[in-house]
Each structure stands twice: as C-alpha cells, then as structure tokens.
C-alpha cells in the first residue's frame, strides 16, 4: 500500500515528471530569501544546474567562477569561513568528481558549511554519454568524515532538502539528475534530513516478505516494483533513504527485521553507494540477504535516459526480478 502522503494514482502512464534540479533551483531561491548569508557559486553551468533563478534575484550574492571546479570548492570554503552559506554547483562528474581532494581538505576536514550540488548524476544524463554520467559520486562522498550525502527522489524532495541543508551547519552533498523523473511526493510529504521514510507498506497476508531500500529518483521504479511483486504474491515494502549519510540506522534495522531479504536500488555503481552502506551496517547487526540493484561495475553510454536505466538493470522489471529472486 502506498504511503498516504504521496501523489495519488501513481503509474508509469500517468505520472508527471520533472528533473530534481528544478526543485533545487526553487529551493535555493527560497533559501536565499530566508537567509541573506546564502550565496551561490557556479562553474559556467548556471542555467543547467538551475542556479539561474537565484543568480537573477540576487546577482550580488552569486559568483560566476568559470570552468574551474577545484577553485569552486575552495572559494566556497573561504566564503563559509566568513559566515556565508555557499551552495556550489556543477555537474557531479566535475564536482565532486574532479575536485574531490579540495572538497576533502578545504570543506570536509575544515567542517566547512558548504553545500555541494552535483547535478547530472546517474546514467539518466542520457545522450552526453559516460564522461558526463557520475555513477561513483555517492561512494567518494560517503567516505568523507563530516560529509552528509543526500539523493532526493523528486523535485519536491529536492526543494525541501535544499531548504533543510541551508539551515544545517556543515558540509552537505546533494545529488541531482538531469532528466525529467517521476514526481512521487507532494509538497506535504514529510522530509527530514537523516530520516528514512516508508513509502510503500507490504500486504501482511502474504507469506514472503521483501524490503526494497531506494534512494534518488529510482524511488518511483521501486514503488512500481513493489506493487508488481505483491501482484505476484510476494509482500513488498519500500523504504526511501534520501539521506545516505548519515544512514538512518534505526529505521533500516527495523525494516530489515520485518523482511526476509532486501533489495537496494540506486542509480550508481553497486559498489560503495546505498547498497554498500546498507550492507556494511546490516552485516554487523542483522545479517540478511541483500540484492543490490545498480550499475554493475561498468561505464554508461549515450542513449535516452529511460532506455539507459533499463539497460543497466534499474528498470521496474529488473527490480521486480531482483525481489523475486532474493526471497526464493
């Protein structure tokens, strides 16, 4: 059963779509209106990262850094040292891809109040191809002490996460997508950083029980797979973890205890991302069979977003199959 605060009648044919970066753009503008210390920096991708709304409203609080992501990260750190709340935006492949060491030393090690916005994450970047499809970013950011990692499910959640991050004092990494992805939540769906939400509850009359743990915009596919599994007679639930670090261990443990096996779902390499985080934690407290849906140690390629998500095994059908197999 779908959680009550989601969009009504979710189905692949009728669901409305919008890129998560749109929610970031709206959230950033709103955060800027609420707090004059919020500033935005961008590397020649102002429209594409949706930093443009903020830049137009607050031109004096916007810094165009040019194509220079290493500088972006450390300038952000310097501004935070003087009390600003910098949102630094580029494509995830370049920030945190190219400038990881600058992020580590000048933001994470300094515990600097910088928000790192990695747009165009995942294979759903589409036609630009593998060079622009960041599918390792969760792994490299999750490994950094002090760093919070968030992958919002849709534009509403991206907006809420942006506002929440602006209030939180410390480094945050957001992962955003390029393509229009299903709008699953509503402006009223609860969101709290660090808190996982059950988005689909299994039919308790069904004997087999699979728990799907998702992050980012694949939440929709996870929900559709849960519905399909239940039609096949397997009880399925979905726990959405927008915040990958810190992991909501309490929610994850009780979710694992209520199911026979888990499937993790992310648009990322299966190594080091959500599946890695879930496996690492549960292996110590509640060993359970876990099937990790994601990119299987490969690079992406050009194509349409949906066909790439399907091709790399993250479509509804693939998640459903993983669910069936893991509780066999």
């Amino acid at each position, binding site marked *: 059963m779908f959680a009550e605060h989601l969009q009504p009648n979710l189905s692949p044919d009728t669901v409305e779509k919008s890129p998560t970066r749109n929610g970031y753009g709206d959230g950033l503008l709103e955060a800027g209106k609420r707090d004059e210390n919020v500033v935005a920096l961008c590397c020649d991708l102002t429209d594409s990262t949706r930093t443009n709304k903020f830049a137009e409203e607050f031109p004096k609080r916007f*810094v165009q850094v040019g194509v220079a992501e290493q*500088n972006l990260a450390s300038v952000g750190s310097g501004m935070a040292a003087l009390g600003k709340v910098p949102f630094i935006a580029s494509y995830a492949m370049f920030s945190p891809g190219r400038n990881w060491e600058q992020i580590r030393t000048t933001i994470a*090690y*300094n515990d600097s109040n910088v928000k790192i916005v990695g747009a165009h994450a995942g294979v759903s970047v589409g036609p630009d191809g593998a060079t622009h499809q960041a599918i390792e970013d969760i792994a490299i950011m999750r490994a950094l002490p002090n760093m919070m990692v968030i992958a919002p499910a849709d534009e509403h959640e991206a907006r809420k996460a942006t506002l929440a991050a602006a209030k939180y004092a410390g480094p945050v990494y957001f992962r955003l997508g390029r393509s229009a992805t299903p709008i699953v939540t509503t402006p009223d769906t609860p969101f709290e950083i660090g808190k996982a939400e059950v988005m689909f509850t299994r039919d308790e009359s069904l004997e087999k029980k699979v728990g799907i743990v998702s992050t980012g915009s694949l939440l929709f596919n996870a929900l559709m797979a849960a519905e399909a599994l239940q039609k096949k007679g397997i009880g399925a639930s979905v726990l959405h973890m927008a915040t990958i670090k810190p992991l909501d261990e309490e929610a994850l443990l009780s979710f694992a205890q209520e199911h026979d096996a888990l499937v993790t779902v992310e648009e990322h390499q299966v190594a080091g991302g959500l599946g890695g985080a879930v496996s690492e934690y549960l292996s110590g407290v509640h060993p359970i069979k876990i099937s990790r849906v994601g990119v299987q140690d490969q690079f992406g390629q050009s194509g349409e977003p949906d066909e790439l998500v399907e091709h790399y095994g993250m479509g509804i059908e693939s998640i459903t199959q993983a669910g069936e197999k893991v509780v066999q």
Partner: protein
Amino acid sequence: MQYLTSQEVKDLELKANEIRQSIIEMLSEAGSGHTAGPLGMADVLTLLYFGILKHDPQNPDWEERDRLVLSNGHICPVLYATLAHAGYFSVDELLTLRKFGSRLQGHPHRQSLPGLETSSGPLGSGLSQAVGMALAERMNNPYSAKFMYCLTGDGELQEGQIWEAAFLAGKEQLNNLIVIVDRNGIQIDGYTKDVMPMEPLAEKFEAFNFDVQEVDGHNMRALNDAIGKAQAVYSQPSVIIAHTIASKGVDVFERDFRWHGNPPGKGPEDRVAKDKQAEVALQKLRTLAGTINTHDV
C-alpha cells in the same frame, strides 16, 4: 602606511631570530618536517604578526581580524612558532609538533589550534580560499578595512588551481587580497628552474590583472613598504614576490634544496654531520652566524 623605525626593525629581526630557533628546536624534536621554507619565511611571518596584521591572540576569533591563509601548509613550523611567540599558545607546546595527540599537526588543521584560518597541505587551494574570504568580506561590508593575506610557495605555483584562483581574483578586482609568494627557488626534487621553470613570474601575475611587486624577503623595511603599497592598491588584487633564501639564518643549510623536506638531524651531511645539525643551527642563530662571539651558547 606605517614606517618602521630603526629600533622597530631591530626588534623584528630579533623576534625573527627567536622564531627561527624555535623552528630548529621543534623540527629536531619532531624528527621529521620541513626546514628550508620555515626558516626562509620567518622574516615575513614575523613582520606580519608583529607589525602588520590586525589580530588579537587573546581572542583568535575576533571578527574584525585580518585573515592569513597559509597555502603552502608544509611550512607550518614557522606559522606555529610565530603564533606561539605572538601569544596564541605557549612556546613550550611547540615541542609537541607532529606528535600523537598534538594540536600542532604535521600540516595545519584549523579545528585543532587557535589562530589557524584553514587546514592546508595539499598545495594550491589556499589562494582559492583567500579569494573566497575576500569575496565574502566585500559582500558583508564594501567599506571593510580587513585584508586577506595568502602565503604561497613558489613550487606551489605549478598547481593549476592557483591560476584558477588568480583568474577569479583578477576578474573580481579583489583589492582586499594580498598574496605573498615565497620565491626561494627550491622544491623537493631540486631547484624550481630545473623542475619547472616559472619565469617570468611577475608577468604571469600581471597578465591575470594583479598588481605585482618584487622585494627582498629578508628586508623588514622593504617588506613593510611593499605590504603598505599593496594595501593601497585600488581595484586589483596584489602579489608580492618575496625573494627569500631557503633555510635563511643557518648559512650551512642555506640555498640547498635538500633541506626542503628534512629536519635537522636528517639533512644532507656534506657540511654538518647529522648528529650535529640541530646544535650547529642553534649556535649559528644564537651567534648570528658567528658575528657574536660568545662561549656560553
């Protein structure tokens, strides 16, 4: 601009000498660390903390302080020693450098020690941070009298990020940014002219819209004048290329790139045996390289 009296110059030189002695003692005790850069920059750091910076050792987080970003974090012994002599913490604590549990990490960690504006070590990112501080300060207060100082090495200028930051500083006309380059001509693998020639350096910064001065990095009065002029520059960031002598003050270590990354006790042996290096260095400093004849040092 404040002019320095002869007495002030003499006091600063004596203070720099004390700081150099601390550097030798702390490196020798640590058994690892960098010698050439810290000794070479002792005059610049002394002038900054005892003559230029608006700061308060009793209140390190004072909002109105100038900021000093040490981009070449490996020369931190000179920063630590200067901060201690300025009163941020006790001079005794300098001997904990690089030891387990010490606030004086091998490379600076902002959260560990009062007086540090950032963590550094990986080269090239300090200038960007100083640019960020300068931008933020201008947003906070367009009439601010604060200056953001950034110290860099010369080998460090081989990092691409330096020039990314220079682009932005020039574009934004950050006249509250003053960069001081330690032009000692050495880096770990050799002389900069052999590892990666960087001349003409002044012209490079000029091309990025910096006001450029070149100065003797051991002449207090010349340094003071250069910083004063840099503060008065209108609508441009400033760079002062401070020509320094690696390991300045200990003549038997001077100008030798092999002292870049070694402490006394582990440096090249052709002039002074390893087990005598710290002792000889301290004696050289205490007698001003033999110009003072004293038997009890």
